[in-house]
């Protein structure tokens, strides 16, 4: 392995600019003659707009324009995935205008935009927009919403977007009829607010001379935004619309979606022929960035007398919020229910999911997107089943693991896992976590008045999203391939144009490692370009842990095309047959001779083709590949959490956290571990700290960091992260994806540990987030119940 090749812990290329304050985020970009937009948002969760008076705002100092929905008559924000109901009919897709005219449907809904010379002036004037609202009853709780008492959208009965199912119901019922034991659980997967540290921002610009639009935006997938906004909302053809997502300060899913503000600034820039910039306040981000999770589920697991799983039945309500965000509909269906077999051989699984509109902000993919909901459900159920049957947490899992020799393994819920070794990850995790020493640690904690518990989670997820044919068959309105262009410059350095987008993942480093190794050229001779639709041919962007498995494979294939072309050139120059040219370590050699040519010489020749046979050999060395994967990838792992609970206060401290994940081949271990650390932190956050709370009127009670508890350094331990490896079978690199595993595997491990700790106090369940108050209340309830017996 070279110091910069595949497998090396290369220090990141991008760090120097970030560490010296020279990154370029959207808010760092200012354009000549720029104006500022401030959005007038609804203070109410549900109200009819009777009138909007913009006259005072329009007359305020510095104001350039005020627009309402009546002015901005454009297409609605589209949803990218159509789900079908049990009866085969399509889901209901109510309109999603960038500026609403009829009624507001959640606190923060966009009512008007005020554009002024300065941000302060826009903000001052926004307060002068007078909206006359007729209050309507808000529906916040999904269980109420499906009764249809109050409708978020007048033409969506029972607020039900769709009622969907997956799996064989009859076979599952049959499995339950044979069960020796049934374990039941009612579970809430708490709603989360993504909170990438960079607030969203958008800057629209219009060139009246050329008719070209530019949108600078905080996006994980600029080409997707160009397509959605250009084709569906504003009807601007792609060749007249450039979308540029420069340095982006974290996304975690929340910057996948096409948001109203992007359309508003682009449209306004066209109207005013001046650049229009909008930057979210964090308070706005809390209200209008798409939230994550928010499931209410009842599930039952059937077991035989030996603890083998026979069947699983799942019924879930999934909150969509007030509108269908870009990929909202796919998250609780094809990214959730398809994972319900988990790492187990459960032969029959049946799931039904109702997607529900409420007067809350939109909900969509957030790190893990559906898979954390699945893993949390399965691993809590398995933990409970172990407690009920008296089988150990480890044994019940081993008895039901899909064995390593069973791959490829077809689950009863559509997916075919290509590779994995679940016992190996469990073994490695047990070793790393010093499982054998747990009893002694628990006894020592007891001396300090703390109750200590240990919790397990053995999960699998599906990422590397996605094979277009499969996605299309399931309702996706887009292909999910990725593209790469390798542009070899005349002196042999290389620029890689990738449709993947880095917003913290370190693509500039990882991708350069791959290209450097593939082409045998120095790491520093490779630059990665991404994020700008005017440079990059096309791309589907970064989410679903797809950058390496899909985007990386596209790069490999483009490299292979470069090598093929370069061989032709070398064959010509070396006067050999193309079939005799071998390529290794950056050298083209005529087999069996000492005749050779370095990669750089081939590159130069490609651009100085003085004697090329032009009929058969084109000048230049620049190749593009599009890669559409054959299957998802299936990272899996074992997370083991130890917690100590202070029974007097309910405070839970994560004492140890071990994560052993099989993410396939590791290109850069430093970056992979960093991804796992971050994912685990978000998972621990979900389990212990974070929860989005609306009151009954739809006011967001967790609307700032004063009330929404972000994990901080002193909330977390050091994370003991390791990997085991089985290679993915359907990409060249054998990579699976590491972006989401931390957030998928960790929440059940934490909660199972809390339940384990509190089991000696009679507690059997603790909801997420297990805040001190909730833990204390669970202890009190158990005490009261024990006293009553």
């Amino acid at each position, binding site marked *: 392995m070279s110091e910069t090749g595949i497998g090396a812990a290369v220090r990141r290329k991008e760090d120097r600019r970030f560490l010296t304050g020279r990154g370029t985020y959207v808010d760092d970009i200012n354009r000549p003659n720029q104006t500022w937009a401030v959005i007038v948002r609804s203070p109410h969760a549900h109200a009819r707009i009777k009138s909007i008076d913009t006259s005072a705002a329009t007359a305020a100092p510095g104001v350039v324009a005020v627009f309402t929905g009546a002015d901005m008559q454009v297409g609605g924000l589209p949803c990218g995935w159509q789900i079908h109901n049990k009866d085969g009919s399509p889901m209901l897709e109510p309109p999603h205008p960038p500026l609403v005219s009829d009624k507001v449907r959640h606190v923060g809904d966009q009512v008007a935009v005020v554009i002024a010379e300065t941000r*302060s002036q826009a903000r*001052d004037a926004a*307060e002068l927009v007078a909206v006359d609202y007729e209050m309507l009853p808000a529906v916040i709780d999904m269980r109420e919403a499906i009764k249809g008492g109050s409708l978020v959208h007048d033409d969506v009965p029972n607020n039900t977007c769709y009622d969907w199912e997956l799996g064989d119901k009859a076979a599952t019922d049959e499995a339950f009829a044979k069960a020796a034991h049934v374990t039941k659980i009612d579970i809430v997967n708490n709603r989360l607010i993504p909170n990438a540290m960079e607030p969203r921002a958008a800057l629209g610009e219009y060139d009246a001379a050329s008719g070209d639009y530019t949108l600078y935006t905080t996006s994980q997938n600029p080409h997707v935004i160009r397509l959605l906004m250009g084709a569906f909302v504003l009807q601007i053809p792609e060749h007249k619309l450039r979308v540029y997502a420069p340095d982006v300060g974290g996304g975690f899913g929340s910057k996948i979606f096409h948001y109203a503000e992007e359309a508003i600034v682009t449209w306004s820039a066209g109207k005013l022929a001046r650049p229009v910039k909008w930057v979210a306040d964090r308070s706005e981000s809390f209200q209008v960035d798409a939230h994550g999770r928010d499931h209410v589920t009842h599930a039952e697991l059937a077991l035989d007398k030996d603890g083998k799983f026979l069947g699983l039945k799942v019924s879930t309500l999934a909150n969509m919020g007030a509108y269908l965000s870009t990929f909202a509909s796919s998250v609780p269906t094809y990214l959730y229910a398809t994972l319900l077999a988990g790492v187990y051989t459960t032969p029959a699984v049946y799931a039904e999911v109702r997607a529900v509109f409420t007067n809350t902000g939109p909900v969509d993919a957030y790190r893990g997107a559906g898979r954390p909901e699945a893993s949390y459900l399965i691993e809590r159920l398995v933990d409970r089943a172990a407690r009920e049957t008296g089988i150990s947490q480890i044994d019940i899992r081993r008895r039901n693991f899909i064995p390593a020799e069973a791959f490829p393994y077809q689950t009863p819920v559509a997916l075919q896992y290509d590779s994995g070794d679940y016992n190996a990850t469990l073994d490695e995790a047990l070793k790393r976590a010093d499982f054998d020493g747990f009893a002694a640690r628990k006894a020592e904690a007891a001396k300090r008045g703390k109750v200590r518990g240990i919790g397990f989670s053995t999960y699998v997820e599906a990422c590397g999203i996605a094979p277009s044919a499969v996605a299309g068959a399931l309702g996706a309105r887009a292909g999910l391939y990725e593209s790469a262009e390798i542009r070899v410059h005349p002196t042999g350095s290389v620029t890689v144009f990738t449709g993947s987008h880095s917003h913290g993942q370190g693509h500039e480093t990882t991708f350069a490692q791959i290209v450097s190794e593939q082409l045998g050229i120095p790491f520093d001779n490779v630059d990665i370009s991404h994020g700008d639709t005017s440079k990059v041919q096309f791309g589907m962007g970064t989410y679903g842990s797809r950058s390496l498995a899909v985007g990386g494979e596209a790069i490999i294939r483009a490299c292979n095309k470069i090598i093929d072309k370069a061989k032709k050139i070398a064959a010509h120059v070396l006067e050999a047959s193309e079939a005799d040219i071998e390529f290794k370590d950056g050298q083209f050699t005529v087999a069996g001779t000492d005749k050779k040519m370095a990669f750089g010489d081939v590159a130069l020749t490609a651009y100085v083709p003085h004697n090329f046979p032009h009929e058969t050999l084109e000048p230049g060395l620049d190749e593009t590949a599009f890669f559409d994967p054959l299957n998802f990838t299936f990272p899996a792992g074992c997370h083991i959490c130890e917690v100590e609970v202070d029974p007097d206060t309910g405070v839970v401290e994560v004492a140890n956290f071990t994560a052993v994940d099989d993410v396939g081949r590791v290109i850069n271990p430093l970056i992979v571990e960093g991804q796992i650390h971050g994912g685990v932190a978000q998972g621990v956050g979900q389990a212990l700290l974070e929860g989005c709370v609306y009151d009954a009127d739809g006011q967001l009670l*967790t609307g700032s*960091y004063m*009330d929404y508890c972000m994990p901080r350094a002193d*909330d977390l331990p050091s994370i003991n992260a390791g990997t085991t490896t089985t290679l993915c079978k359907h990409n060249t690199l054998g990579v699976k994806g590491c972006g989401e595993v931390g957030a998928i595997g960790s929440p059940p491990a934490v909660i199972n540990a809390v339940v384990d700790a509190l089991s000696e106090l009679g507690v059997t369940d603790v909801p997420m987030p297990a805040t*001190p*108050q909730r833990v204390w209340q669970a202890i009190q309830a158990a005490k009261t119940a024990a006293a009553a017996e």
Partner: protein
Amino acid sequence: MYEFEYHRPGTVADASAAVKSAADGRILAGGMTLLPTLKQRLASPSDLVDLADIAELKGISVAGNEVVIGAMTRHAEVAASADVQSKIPALAQLASHIGDPQVRNRGTLGGSIANNDPAADYPAACLALAATIRTNEREISADDFFTGLFETALSDGEIVTAVSFPVPDKAAYMKFANPASRYALVGVFVAKTGGDVRVAVTGAGSDGVFRVSEMESALAGNFSADAIAGIAVPADGLNADIHASAEYRAHLIGVMARRAVQAAG
């Protein structure tokens, strides 16, 4: 933020005059609460009068059996002060856990108590230590100073200049922080000075900081955690929010009070 005029006078008298002459003047000390409030547009003062240049408001001194801390002394300075650490270590410890490091680098004692946020830490120390709040006009006992939620005995243009803390025999502060904001969900300051024991609670009371007389008398007889083990603080009148119900706060007052007594030794 709305627009305002900014003043930075050099003396307390000028500062007081500036506040009084303004249509709606506000004093700017460390700004750690005021500026976030203004950023959220929750207040719109006409004038801000910054006390930063008034040298007489800064510094820590020991006079007899009292530690006197100037109103514009930063939390970090209180936490790091050798005098405070040796005379009233509980106060240094309290200061070292206010907000975060950057809040402690800017936030001031005077600003904190004049604001009297019901979840602030210093009011508990002032009350438990029977501090005297000195202003440009008079001296006010802590018992009289904190009059309610964000309310104090200060009149318009009256400026806190210093706080004088009597040195206790024993004292400790235990804070149960709001996991999100890190303000006190419940903070209990226990101090024993001669035969007098005071137990002051912040974070929990809907009227701000308050004393728990039942605990005080029990501890006056027997300064041990056991002495208050059986005392349950009623939940009535305590704050309730998504982080803590009144019942949970009441429970935490007991736990934190016992731990404070233990820590005080």
